[in-house]
């Protein structure tokens, strides 16, 4: 489903991604781990089409189609979803209104009419139950005054609403206590099916106890330096990243 070939990207002339190769198939869960500053969040932003970053070489393919020229919203319409590490606040815009706009904009792009209010309400009800979200929460301004946990749960709620083909979860576990982590992870697991794919970006193995990856990749200095199965995550947890760095240096 997702194919990344020799991807190079830079910000303000500084190279961050230095030749990423990655293939993610439908129904798979991939974890990307790595020390701080290795380029994990950059990779997520570049896949989502953030133009702060310049793609200098290589390409990103979604269902065999190069998405290089697609705007972030077009990528979203094609099923790319990014759960942000730091979700932004939009004062005065309720979670419900934001989701309604997002869903209808995607429908519009596909030539569909707005979702009927009745269906929208049902969808919101179902998905908020899935993530154990209090309905009152949905009338609050988007991310304004939300706790870290609320923000992350709200991201996954949006993922549930939009039902993306490819979901990238950028450090969704940071700022979550153990209960919130379980709820969020359960939500993600319920959303997982044979047709979609999930890329989990994380520092810690903790989240992977709940969202079990099929593959684990280690990103270091803008490259994937090691790939393996979930056992690799356990090894990293135990030994840290230093041995990876040493291996990469050789």
């Amino acid at each position, binding site marked *: 489903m997702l194919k990344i070939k020799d991807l190079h990207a830079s910000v303000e002339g500084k190279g961050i991604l230095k030749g990423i190769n990655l293939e993610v198939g439908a129904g798979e869960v991939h974890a990307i781990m790595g020390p701080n500053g290795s380029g994990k969040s950059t990779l997520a932003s570049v896949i*989502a*089409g*953030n*133009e*702060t970053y310049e793609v200098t070489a290589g390409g990103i393919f979604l269902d065999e189609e190069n998405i290089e020229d697609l*705007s*972030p*919203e077009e*990528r*979203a*319409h094609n099923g*790319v*979803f*990014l759960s*942000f590490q730091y*979700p*932004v*606040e*939009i*004062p*005065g*815009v309720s979670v419900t*209104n*934001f989701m309604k*706009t*997002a*869903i209808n*904009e*995607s429908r519009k*792009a596909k030539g569909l009419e707005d979702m009927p209010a009745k269906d929208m309400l049902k969808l919101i009800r179902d998905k908020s139950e899935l993530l154990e979200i209090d309905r009152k929460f949905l009338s609050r*301004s988007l991310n304004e005054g939300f706790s870290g946990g609320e923000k992350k749960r709200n991201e996954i709620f*949006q993922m549930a609403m*939009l039902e993306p083909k490819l979901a990238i979860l950028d450090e969704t576990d940071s700022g979550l206590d153990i209960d919130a982590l379980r709820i969020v992870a359960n939500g993600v697991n319920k959303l997982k099916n044979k047709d979609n794919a999930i890329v989990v970006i994380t520092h810690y193995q903790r989240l992977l106890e709940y969202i079990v990856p099929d593959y684990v990749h280690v990103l270091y200095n803008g490259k994937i330096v090691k790939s393996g199965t979930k056992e690799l995550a356990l090894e990293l947890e135990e030994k840290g990243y230093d041995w990876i760095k040493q291996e990469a240096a050789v």
Partner: protein
Amino acid sequence: MAYTEEELKKELETKEYEYGFYTDIESDTFPIGLSEEIVVAISKKKNEPKWMTDWRVEAYRVWEKMEEPDWANVNYEKPDFQAISYYSAPKKADPNKTLDDVDPELLEMYKKLGISIDEQKKLQNVAVDIVVDSVSVATTFQKTLAEKGIIFMPISEAIQKHPDLVRKYLGTVVPTTDNFYAALNSAVFTDGSFCYIPKGVRCPMELSTYFRINQAGTGQFERTLVVADQESYVSYLEGCTAPSRDENQLHAAVVELIAMDDAEIKYSTVQNWFPGNKEGKGGVYNFVTKRALCEKNAKVSWTQVETGSAVTWKYPSCILKGDNSIGEFYSIAVTNNYQQADTGTKMVHLGKNTRSTIISKGISAGKSQNSYRGLVQVSSRAENARNFSQCDSLLMGNECGAHTFPYIEAKNKTAMIEHEATTSKIGEDQIFYCNQRGIDTEKAIALIVNGFSKEVLNKLPMEFAVEAQKLLEISLEGSVG
């Protein structure tokens, strides 16, 4: 395309004035220039009683000695008052005609503006008194209103039919000598609306008036007078759009509201006069004096959505004369390209336990300048006066300006005055977040701006809120999509 400062700038620059069309209607236009003779001629043309003619002449003589104010934070070429024609009326209009008799071109113009004078309005419970240039051409729902004893008609008609009422209240809130533009308006106004709600009556529908400048080179000087007698209630809507013209047009209106004991007036405005093109050429000069007098336990709410005009100078105010009276001001002012707005309110607390609330939302884009100017004044006799003010500014791009000039004068120690202010900018991260959820930049800006303005939009009557939201989008988005 993802959003960048540069792209936003480009997008905003390509915005064109959506209502920029011009309808060719034969008009009965006076020669240009202003003199005592012209003032008398206007009065004569309108068959006014002598007291009205005298009142105008007096105003003219005062105006002649006045100087145009220049304390506002706006820069523009002062209009040449001798280059303006002071009377223009659509020739074929006649208030006694039915809709079938109305100039089809005029009806077409209303259609473009989305104004329907037909049954739809009835369903929406809106009575419309439309002013094109200076003469009202269509008035509906007079009957329903008449049954309640409510008077709602063009002010020129009210001068003929209810001279005592008009004479009693005209100029009592905004005297002819009040300021340069008010004096000018008093001398030369040709029409506007008059509304009287009798004692104890709740007006059953929103009263609305659409104003529109049409004839080239003619200014419009509306005069609005709303009198709410004791324990009455009225909600009044005023919406404006103007066609695109090359030269600057002067618009100097006066609105007077009188809320007697226990009465309530809600006055809502959506203003969308031509703002000028993207080089700052053309556009309406909007110099408006709006003021309300609140007697005992009375309440007046001003709500305005200002998106148009090249230069705006406007301070809808409340004189809280009666004890326990309440004044409210809710404002959204949008400026783009080279637009300049200096707007705000005055809350003058004279009575005991008077309260006022000010919520101002300024949105600046392009190279525009947006100023909030407000005065909260508590007199020595106003025990326990309360005020809360909140002024928020939202900036788009790097070349616009937002300014806040709050003046507070408290002469009574029991006064409690609060002022809050914030300034924020639409961030690239906010836009990208919306983009990532499938919302394009244009829609994202609209969403963020609407969220920012929500507290004020919520104060508008439902059908107006929708229109206002649309206007905000038109004013700030590019022609993308």
